[in-house]
């Protein structure tokens, strides 16, 4: 389905169909209502004494039951339709090409796993699922890509994610949709969807100071994480092979060592204590920048991948 405004993912096309459904419902209800309003208002105007006003409807309840049921059924249908797509979008899997996005007043910073960085631009390959992991350095922003019909708030203090799979190459709008201060209206950019070859060429043409994981390793060293999470005297969980594994926690529950868990464990280490360990780690909140945090998490992820390989 193609429309007069671009919709460039399968999700966007599904949303456009949903829009058509909503529009049709609206048009139907409005047409019926306006027809009745005009018809009654004109036919039963006070000046028209000849209109038949006998046999007025006295009992109203079966009318009430009819239109209440009809609206309820229609509304429930629309609810299910919209909910399905929402669950697919935000309950999406965790696979895909990961790109980290950091928002700050008033710019978007993106970091690719290879260490490539860009500002107010996001290059992605065609026909690949891209998964953005987004965090904010100051206030709430919202990553809005109208051509893909999606947006999600970027919230300080936590990470949110957003997945999409572009179906056509081109350049599309990127907007900040959550009001964030003075230059909110200028916190815009471009989404560049490229053929896979072009994308790879673009990746390799960027100036890179090591992959994201390598940058993370540097931060890891600077902050001295290995002092405890290594073979030192203080006992702390090992980082190797940690990512993606289930972790038994001291409150008896089992957590999964995913992005959010690693993030929380660095900035709010007390929130989730691994069973059998002392709550000793200090919070790195405010001591580590968003960029560094992303790099360290990427580094810990890379350790798991290394562990998988023999």
């Amino acid at each position: 389905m193609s429309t007069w405004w671009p919709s460039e993912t399968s999700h966007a096309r599904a949303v456009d169909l949903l829009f058509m459904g909503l529009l049709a419902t609206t048009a139907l209800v409005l047409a019926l209502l306006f027809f009745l309003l005009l018809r009654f208002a004109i036919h039963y105007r006070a000046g028209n004494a000849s209109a038949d006003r006998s046999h007025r409807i006295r009992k109203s309840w079966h009318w009430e039951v009819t239109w209440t049921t009809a609206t309820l059924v229609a509304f429930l249908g629309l609810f299910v339709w919209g909910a399905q797509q929402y669950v697919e979008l935000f309950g999406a899997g965790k696979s895909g090409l990961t790109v980290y996005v950091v928002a700050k007043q008033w710019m978007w910073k993106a970091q690719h796993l290879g260490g490539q960085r860009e500002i107010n631009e996001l290059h992605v390959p065609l026909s690949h699922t891209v998964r953005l992991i987004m965090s904010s350095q100051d206030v709430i922003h919202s990553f809005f890509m109208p051509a893909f019909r999606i947006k999600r708030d970027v919230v300080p203090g936590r990470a949110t994610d957003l997945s999409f799979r572009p179906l056509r190459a081109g350049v599309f709008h990127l907007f900040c949709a959550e009001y964030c201060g003075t230059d909110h209206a200028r916190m815009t950019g471009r989404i560049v969807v490229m053929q896979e070859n072009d994308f790879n060429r673009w990746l390799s043409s960027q100036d890179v100071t090591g992959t994201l994981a390598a940058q993370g390793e540097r931060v890891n060293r600077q902050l001295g994480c290995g002092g405890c999470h290594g073979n030192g005297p203080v006992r702390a969980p090992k980082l190797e092979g940690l990512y993606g594994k289930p972790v038994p926690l001291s409150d008896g529950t089992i957590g999964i060592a995913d992005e959010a868990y690693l993030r929380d464990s660095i900035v709010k280490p007390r929130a989730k204590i691994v069973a059998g360990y002392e709550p000793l780690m200090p919070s790195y909140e405010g001591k580590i920048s968003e960029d560094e945090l992303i790099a360290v998490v990427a580094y810990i992820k890379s350790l798991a991948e290394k562990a998988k390989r023999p």
Partner: protein
Amino acid sequence: MPETPAFQFVNLRQQHEVAQLGMWVFLATEVLFFGGLILGYSVYRFMYPEGFAEAARHTQIAIGTTNTAILLTSSFLVAWAVSLARLGAHRLAALLFAAAAALGCVFLLMKGIEYRIEYGEHLVPGYFFIFRGPNATSAWLFFSFYFVATGVHALHVAIGIMVLAVIALKTRRGAYSERYHAPATVAGLYWHFVDLVWVFLFALIYLPGRAS
């Protein structure tokens, strides 16, 4: 003055009912006013159970418990005073109202002492806050709620004391009787409500984390 209803009412009975209903509606409002704080507290306690438990251990439970007993007793005195005012025992009723107001003052005084201790222990977020150990940030959140909640409650107590003092004076002058006692009853409702809020604040602020 009190034997005829205000012009918008048919009789004193209606006026009395209106006053009581008005106060109950106002108290429903107050529940939601404190409710906003309780939601925030609950959310953070859910997110940081250990931090909140540890922070709560730093509150002064002896003062808190004594203060609860003081408020409960003053509430009892007010309830008694209202029943006496209706019977026309003006002198004793006035004395009891005044005693309840005095207990309210004692409550505030002890609250002040408690704040002083917390200041000494550097537990005042945004002003002087030092909390050692891993739970520093959630302890900050706990004490923010602690000061806002007890501060807003103390404001209510202070208003209640003034209301009770006025009611005590008027009772002494014999303003209330079996036919006309709406102000005394309504003031009593307010005071009991302040007590009721404190009962919940006590459970949320002083009791967590005592067992460990």
